[in-house]
């Protein structure tokens, strides 16, 4: 399995500002994923991030709004640009480690945009 850590645990920001969420794995992983979860709802895959290449975004998520960096095999950051109240949700990073088709999740970052 893989242990993932996220920072910050939670954040409150004003509309129009940007914030970064960091994800660190305790071992090297090929792919990292970012998910968005609104209160009481399911998780939506935002993007897949592989080292050294641009992240691949799912429908409804864009690089301009949610730029993702993946500078090495243990680290990724998700930025929320021009935050709006509708971005208030929990953001999770995950990775599959060495196990195929099973993923391990970070504890999540709860974002509130005022």
């Amino acid at each position: 399995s893989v242990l993932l850590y996220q920072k910050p645990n939670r954040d409150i920001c004003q509309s129009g500002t940007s914030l970064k969420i960091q994800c660190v794995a305790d071992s090297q992983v090929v792919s990292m994923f970012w998910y968005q979860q609104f209160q009481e709802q399911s998780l939506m895959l935002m993007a897949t991030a592989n080292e050294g290449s641009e992240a691949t975004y799912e429908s409804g998520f864009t690089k301009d709004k949610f730029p993702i960096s993946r500078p090495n095999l243990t680290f990724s950051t998700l930025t929320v640009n021009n935050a709006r109240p509708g971005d208030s949700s929990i953001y999770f990073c995950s990775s599959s480690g060495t196990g195929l088709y099973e993923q391990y999740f970070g504890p999540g970052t709860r974002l509130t945009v005022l």
Partner: protein
Amino acid sequence: TQTVSQSDAHVTVFEGDSVELRCNYSYGGSIYLSWYIQHHGRGLQFLLKYYSGNPVVQGVNGFEAEFSKSDSSFHLRKASVHWSDSAVYFCAASITGGNNKLTFGQGTVLSVIP
């Protein structure tokens, strides 16, 4: 595109009861199916997965799930639940060659009454 459906939004049982949480999927090709648990305010934890072989797979904490191709289902079961099993359960699917991306069902809230 694969879809995952969990028809029960909420399930309530008494401690010691058995429980089955339902999951149905839609996809024409090879598919990996898995279950995750999310305790309140926490990240997701992997429970079990199925790809091939014995259609009944065992997971952690006494959970098991059974794959049925004819019913397009992957229901999760536990013979005797504990109050600590109260959580949200997500069924997820990933397609072969899909870069490990997960599609989640809507989630089922399991409430166990002590």
